[in-house]
């Protein structure tokens, strides 16, 4: 078997290495990605008071500390059997919408847009955010940086710190916001809605009006029909902060809906002999390996999955964009992996509009932001939609509230199988009979990146900005060739 290694994947969190195994005919047999695993998390947590968890978990990921912080806080609500006051729930949601805007702006403009604006075949030296700004103008660049800061500022006002928030407490949040802060948030949110509009217009001009890009998005290379999982509210609209987990099949039919506490009843993990990665799948359907379709329990989470499981979004401008997306790419669940980028635009709009709504809510400055928990702790479950997809936190404690067990399932883990499948598809289209076509790296990268995978991102990789590297091994594992760009 011949082995090709792509290492590291540029423009991704932490290290990522892709390995492609070829069979005797030189065609793609298996594909997997490798990341350094962070070790000892459960051991680190066991023996600590549960209330420390929201601050600890916000440090396990440098990209979405807010998602972990909030999910952990919700798990504590559940652990202590306490319902936060309505104003606290609204503050948490407002904070969380700001986080979605912050995260999606970075992914869309820094990681995704360069492929479309500069073209998927452009040199990596220019296919980046700087190249993008040269093409679309410095004003757009300023708006990107400005609105990222705006979203960050909203998180700072509510979260107490610009990164690594400290606001979440079981039963509520640590502080209310003043009228002055509310007014500031309202102004920032209004600007973020306008920025969402700008992003939708840019996407329309730069991507949708170019037939080749629409063909690329809808083409077979990047199409992957699977089950989809995401949170919905009581009207089946997409939800970031709270709701019911809904799963639909590749035709869009609901298969199951469940609360966070039932996650292990519906999700199981498969192992394959050729990788240490575990592959979550739907128990109801079963594991058939890395294949899509209705007969395989592989499911996908993330922006596109969220919209695929929902019947709409909660705000008007985002709903318009949502309808446009589904009418353009063909109703029902969209299986085009690259449509995740469009889904992020819909979600930037939705999160910004919701921020604005919440900033105008008359309850948002209420002082009643905490219900003090009095229950005896035992087990707590929670789910939120992190920017990259569904996130579960599950803690067990003794009756003093000291952690005895921790389980966290992150978006990138849910997506392990779909990511491998998408990389394999892209690789198979470009490797035939041992011949590796030009453009392999770009095409594989695009498949990978659409999921915005986030590995133990606490790992540093000085020096950064490394070029992609492909290593080709022969049967015996001897390095035959190294390709760099």
């Amino acid at each position, binding site marked *: 078997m011949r082995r090709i290694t792509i290492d590291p994947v*540029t*423009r*991704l*969190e*932490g290290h990522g290495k892709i390995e492609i195994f070829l069979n005797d005919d030189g065609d793609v047999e298996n594909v997997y990605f490798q990341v*350094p*695993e*962070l*070790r*000892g*998390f459960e*051991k*680190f947590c066991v023996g600590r008071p549960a209330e420390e968890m929201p601050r*600890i978990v916000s*440090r*396990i990921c*440098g*990209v979405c500390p807010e998602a972990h912080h909030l999910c952990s806080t919700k798990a504590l609500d559940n652990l202590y059997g306490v319902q936060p006051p309505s104003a606290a729930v609204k503050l948490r949601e407002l904070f969380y919408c700001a986080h979605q805007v912050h*995260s999606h702006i*970075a*992914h869309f403009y*820094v*990681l995704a847009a360069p492929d479309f604006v500069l073209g998927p075949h452009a040199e990596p030296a220019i296919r*980046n*955010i*700087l190249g993008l*700004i040269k093409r679309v103008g*410095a004003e757009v*660049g*300023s708006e990107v*940086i400005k609105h*990222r*800061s705006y979203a*960050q500022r909203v998180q700072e006002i509510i979260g107490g710190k*610009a*990164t*690594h928030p400290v606001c979440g407490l079981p039963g509520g949040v640590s502080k209310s916001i003043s009228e002055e802060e509310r007014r500031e948030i309202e102004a920032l949110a209004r600007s973020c809605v306008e920025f969402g509009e700008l992003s939708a217009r840019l996407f329309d001009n730069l991507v949708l009006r170019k037939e080749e890009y629409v063909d690329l998005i809808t083409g077979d290379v990047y199409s992957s029909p699977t089950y989809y999982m995401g949170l919905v509210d009581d009207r089946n609209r997409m939800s970031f902060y709270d709701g019911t987990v809904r799963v639909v099949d590749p035709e869009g039919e609901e298969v199951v809906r469940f609360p966070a506490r039932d996650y292990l009843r519906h999700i199981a993990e498969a192992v394959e002999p050729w990788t240490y990665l575990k592959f979550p799948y739907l128990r109801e359907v079963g594991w058939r390996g890395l294949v899509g379709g209705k007969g395989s329990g592989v499911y996908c989470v993330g922006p596109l999955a969220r919209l695929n499981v929902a019947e709409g979004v909660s705000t008007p401008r985002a709903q318009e964009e949502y309808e446009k997306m589904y009418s353009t790419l063909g109703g029902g669940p969209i299986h085009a992996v690259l449509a995740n980028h469009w889904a992020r635009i819909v979600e930037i709009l939705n999160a910004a509009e919701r921020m604005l709504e919440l900033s105008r809510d008359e309850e948002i400055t209420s002082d009643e932001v905490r219900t003090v928990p009095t229950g005896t702790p035992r087990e707590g479950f929670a789910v939120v939609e992190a920017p990259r997809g569904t996130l579960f936190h599950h803690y067990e404690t003794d009756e003093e509230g000291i952690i005895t067990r921790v389980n966290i399932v992150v978006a990138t883990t849910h997506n392990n199988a779909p990511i491998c499948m998408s990389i394999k598809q892209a690789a198979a289209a470009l490797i035939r009979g041992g011949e590796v076509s030009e453009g392999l790296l770009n095409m594989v990268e695009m498949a990978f990146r659409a999921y915005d995978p986030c590995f*133990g*991102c*606490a*790992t*540093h*990789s*000085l*020096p*950064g*900005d490394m070029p992609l590297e492909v290593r080709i091994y022969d049967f015996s594992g001897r390095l035959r060739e190294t390709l760099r760009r």
Partner: protein
Amino acid sequence: MTVRALLLGLGNTILTDDGVGIYVVRAVAQRLEGEPIEGLELDVRQASVGGLGLLDLMAGYGVAIIVDALADERVRPGELCRVDLARGAGHEAFCLHGVGLKTALELGRSIGQALPERVEVYGVGTEDVTTFGEECTPAVRAAIPAVAGRLYRRLRALARE
């Protein structure tokens, strides 16, 4: 003229050696309390962000000195080395969303942000940055005072320039 300088320690203090940049700047800050440096208006800060997130932290300073953990087999645990941004080495600290420091700086400057004219990046070699833990490995821990001393001297030299 007094230089406005930032000494920034980066890392994650619950990932064993990953927090070394933060421990180093804390040690420098301690020394500065007893032995302040004349001619330098210095802020010492610690953060757990990277890439674009660094821009806001650096805005307004004339010089920024960044210290971070370095995961590179060629560098011994505890060894301090200067990372050359000009030669294309970027800096992907852990919260990086795809942009190295070099790119982030270019981006910030291209849209007119007031960023330091001089940015020096130092890496401290590590042994383990993937295990949860609140202490560095012995070799890295032992090197912190010496590394802090070298950075203190670098700051003093800056003040004299």
